[in-house]
């Protein structure tokens, strides 16, 4: 039973088709990675799934319901944390952003404090975003998304703008939160190892006009470990297969 389904999504910008019949079904509680090279329309697909961008044709369904606007179940996490956080708000109020319009400022701030603790940022509520490192700012962005208690998280390369060690750190944090909260996740990324390490399944997106060409089962045991999991033969084999597919593009 798919929880989030994209059914024959088409998208054109100014008459130029960028997406053709992209179809993908994400199960409840599943971690789905969408892998593709830069410029293949990954973000476009994710924005359509989030209801932020209307498809030219096709349907997005969440729990069987067709959506046309951003649904309350799903929250989108942006790649550019520096642009998605509000520079005039403290870290606490940036996280309260998620719920203040529904619950009021007081309640939203209380939730923000709890969520900041979960991402390891207790005590940073009064800081401003620019006073934090990139990795910490991305944690704030993740906390903001979690504070809304979404059933679905849509992640637009949220780990790509930080350094390699911080990325491993964020991976661990995120896997922990994902398993504890039983979230359904759709992650778009161009990083093959990141996709294998995090996901249950990996959907491969082709070049423009893009569509989902193949879906791979990862099948690695959980909990995953940043060092040993990456050394498993299954990991290396899948990595090789996926890289070959990505590099075999005609106009790469």
């Amino acid at each position, binding site marked *: 039973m798919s929880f989030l389904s994209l059914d024959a999504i088409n998208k054109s910008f100014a008459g130029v088709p960028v997406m053709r019949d992209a179809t993908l079904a994400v199960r409840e509680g599943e971690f789905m990675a969408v892998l593709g090279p830069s410029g293949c329309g990954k973000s476009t697909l994710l924005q359509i799934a989030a209801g932020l961008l209307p498809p030219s044709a096709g349907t997005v369904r969440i729990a069987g319901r067709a959506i046309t606007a*951003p649904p*309350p179940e799903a*929250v*989108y996490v942006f790649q550019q944390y520096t642009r998605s956080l509000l520079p005039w708000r403290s870290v606490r109020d940036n996280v309260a952003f*998620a*719920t203040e319009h*529904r619950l009021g400022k007081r309640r939203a701030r209380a939730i923000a404090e709890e969520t900041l603790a979960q991402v390891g940022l207790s005590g940073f509520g009064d800081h401003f975003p*620019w006073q934090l490192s990139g990795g910490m700012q991305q944690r704030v962005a993740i906390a903001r998304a979690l504070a809304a208690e979404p059933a679905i998280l849509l992640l637009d390369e949220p780990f790509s703008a930080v350094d390699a060690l911080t990325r491993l750190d964020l991976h661990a944090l995120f896997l922990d939160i994902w398993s504890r909260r039983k979230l359904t996740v759709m992650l778009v990324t161009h990083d093959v190892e990141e996709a294998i390490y995090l996901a249950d399944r990996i959907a491969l997106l082709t070049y423009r006009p893009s569509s989902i060409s193949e879906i791979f089962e990862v099948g690695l045991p959980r909990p995953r470990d940043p060092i040993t999991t990456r050394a498993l033969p299954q990991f290396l084999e899948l990595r090789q297969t996926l890289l070959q597919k990505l590099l075999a593009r005609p106009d790469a």
Partner: protein
Amino acid sequence: MRSALRWLPGIALLVLLVAGLEWAVNAGMIRRALMPPPSAIGDALWDLLASGDFVEPLFATLRLVFAGFAIGSALGIAAGVAMGWWPAAYRLLEPLVELLRPIPKAALVPALMLFLGIGEAMKITSVALAVFFPVLINTLQGVRGVDRVILDGARTHGWGTAHVLRHLVLPAALPFILAGMRVALGLALVLAVLSEMLSGQGGLGFLILDMQRSFQVRLMYAWLVILAVVGLALNTLFLIAERRALHWQPANRP
């Protein structure tokens, strides 16, 4: 201490100019009837301050500036947000704004006098008109510049339009809005003084003109000094308020 020293050359130049003027007038290089020596202006200014006679005209002018500035700013921000947010509002209002904006607002004072007379209403309207356009243009630019990513963030969290405008668009555009208001504050003082001169009653503007016409040149210059101080004080107060409102900007942090 250090910052006081930094301004020393500028203050020294000012003192030198005043002293030079004093000397030039006393040496007969400038006619006293046109330019009394600064010391005589100082005496007149002192009398004015000591007698308390400066209070009423000063407050009359300040009232115009504040009332007109508040009304013009509020309308300018509202129109700027509407035009920046709703394309239909932009298409409706842009031709009108572009037609009216280039008119020097001073040129509208005679027409306003026809409709509103020479009282408070006309003067406040003149000031508000001068303030309205720069605030509108800057607000419009600020609203249009709000980052798409921030707006999408609000959408994915289910924010409604009113909440977005109040808590996202306005604060994001605030640096632009305040820059427009700072320009408008200077214009407000210009139009307040000018409409007082043209209406022939009340406030600093009228007095400066009246003193000149009745050959009380010393008093004319004394009022001019008061006007200069008012302009400086208004600008300084605004800068302090602006810095406080934008305290989150890294440049404004200690």
